[in-house]
């Protein structure tokens, strides 16, 4: 089982879209796949039409009162399951803080699922917190979408420093450009100049596109309503590149 966390300190950079679309592609390849929606906003739960509700909320979840397996919902797609969000996840930090070894908590909860799933995607809320530290411990890959702006690049540097300082040796950082707008001069320039400098920056760009935006109306992964086009190809290339790294 490989755990892939989509994470960025910044909000609205395409984390959830990435999670939903990559998980869909993994399942399509026949891998048993789970999406864990850790964001109280419940965006990925929404895309899969699963009610953002967890029995007992964050407290029961973190306490491990129920096995995670009992909270999982099958999506409309073969091999693809979802562990939904709950509004109480807004207190996840407090709940975690009340425990011993809070940062090891997610890893521990995921362990019993190791035989059942090939890939687990963690859809994380933005910002850096105790939860994100727990995510870093649990994940094998930290997948970070970045919008091609100078500010975004700075946050990526911050993240790298954090990983280094906290000696998260088993965590591999992979980033890629997300929501890149070909009409914006700055986007083009940054992609052109930075693409080759960073080993952890994939040579793949997810374009800013209306078919991706439509996921919100369709309430399903991109691949479930379009089979062709630049966006579909970009996500496929991204998934292949990640598989290569693993």
């Amino acid at each position, binding site marked *: 089982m490989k755990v892939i966390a989509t994470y960025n300190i910044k909000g609205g950079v395409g984390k959830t879209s990435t999670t939903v679309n990559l998980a869909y592609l993994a399942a399509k390849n026949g891998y048993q796949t789970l999406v864990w929606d850790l964001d109280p906003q419940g965006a990925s739960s929404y895309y899969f*039409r699963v*009610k953002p509700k967890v029995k007992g909320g964050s407290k029961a979840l973190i306490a491990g009162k129920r096995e995670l397996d009992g*909270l*999982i*919902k*099958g999506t*409309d797609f073969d091999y693809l*399951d979802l562990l939904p969000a709950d509004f109480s996840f807004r207190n996840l930090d407090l709940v975690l803080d009340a425990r011993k070894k809070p940062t090891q908590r997610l890893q521990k909860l995921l362990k019993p699922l190791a035989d059942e799933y090939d890939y687990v995607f963690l859809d994380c809320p933005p910002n850096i917190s105790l939860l994100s530290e727990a995510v870093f411990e649990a994940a094998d890959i930290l997948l970070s979408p970045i919008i091609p702006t100078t500010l975004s690049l700075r946050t990526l540097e911050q993240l790298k420093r954090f990983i280094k300082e906290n000696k998260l040796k088993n965590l591999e950082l992979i980033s890629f450009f997300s929501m890149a707008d070909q009409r914006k001069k700055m986007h083009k320039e940054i992609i052109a100049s930075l693409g080759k400098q960073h080993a952890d920056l994939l040579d793949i760009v997810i374009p800013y596109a209306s078919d991706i935006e439509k996921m919100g109306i369709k*309430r399903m992964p991109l691949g479930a309503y379009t089979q062709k086009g630049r966006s579909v190809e970009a996500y496929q290339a991204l998934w292949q590149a990640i598989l290569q790294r693993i």
Partner: protein
Amino acid sequence: MTKIALSFELPANLNAEKFIAKLAKKTPCELVQQHYAQKSFYDSFDWRLYDANLTCEFNQSKDATLLVLKRTSTADIIASTVIDKAPIFAKDLPISPLSDKLLNLLEMRALLPLTTLELQIYKLNIFNEDQKTIARLLIEDYTNFGCRLAIQPIKGYDKAATNLHQLLVKHLSLIVIRKPILLAVLKSQGRKPKDYSSKLNLQLKPTMPANKGIRIIYKTLLNTIKINEQGTIDAIDSEFLHDFRVSIRRTRSGLSQFKAIFSNNINTHYSQYFAWLGSITSLSRDLDVYLLNIDDYKASLPKSMREDLNPLIIFLQTKKIIAQKKLAKKLTSKKYLQTLGQWEDYLKQPPTENTSLTLKQLADTRIWTVYQRILKEGSVITQQTPAQALHDLRKTCKKLRYLMEFFQSLYPTSKIKILIKSLKNLQAVLGDFQDYEVQENALRKFSEEMMHLQSVSTPTFLAMGVLVQKLDEKRCQARHHFAKCFIEFKTPSNQAIFKSLFAMQTRETK
């Protein structure tokens, strides 16, 4: 969640389309697929899947072919895999939970088609107010066997499945399936499951005249020979020949054990015939055994040497093809067919022998005599006794085993089972001892033959050498083991059972 039934039958007055229309009025649903398909059922010749409450289906439609394993009684799906052709052997399947399960049960037996049905398939999604699918329905509308329906629950939506179950049973008057479709289909063909088993299951009466009883035994054995004949000729899998040979050996054993009943002429004539049948089938069987053992052989070698045995496999397979051709020719020959036909006719004729012996008396005497012989032969064996003595004892044990299996139904089941089991253990160690020796010698012989082949190189001979050594170690272990097994066989409690079942009566009749 309490387990709910997932498979249903539509009542006769309801067809698939009408049902879907009715369902749509009760719950939000959508027909997502409808297509023609063919469903073929598979099992081994000896019904290993059916015995394990499993049904193997191969489903073919325009856009997908799927091998599915279901629990027969409930029709629940246990495992499935996408594959373009039904496999002949489980080991030919790509590794998956399905192949594990099949391999475990079928071992070396081939999967054979039982029957093929035509049907129309409908797939429906049941959804909630968010248009989220919360359960699926699969409808199978068979051309001649009615219409069946299965709920396919979705993880985490147990309640939806339960509600759907209620809806189907209470409001749409569906019937929970009690009988698997396979049974209905077989019945329509005049067949029954488990119409073949390699085990003897004779129901005999103690008081029947012995000459009548042994005719029943011979007829049953003859029947098994005939049932396995075609599969042996076609070499569908190794077990046709195996069962064929076991019946021959049992018949031969009968002819020598029941000498007193038929005339000398008959006994000699057919003993010779069945001895001949045994001999013409033995090479093919030996090669089967080596080929079946190959995985074990490999496993006994160091990892680095295992693949070096591959040329041996090819050598054996080539030999087997030649032996099989010869065998097939012999089994279609006049000599084989004519004499077997005569034997059949002879058994059909009403008994003319003059005997007052009942079957039970015959059974008691024979079993008791052979048992005494085992005790005698076994007790003189020490570590120093030549191997031949153990081989002879093995043969005697086999005779006793056949006798007890023939006459099982004449004795209390629980007691005879205990005796057969303890005999089995003794036979196992004697069998090992001899088999390892035979295999060692065969490997030596094969390596000599393989010397002349250009394609075989030193590492192969080296691997075969190591294998001979491993077999020799195992042979020595078996020999060591013998003393303990023999003591276990002749425990006072076993002796007492033997005596109580077979000895008293013998004395009375004398």
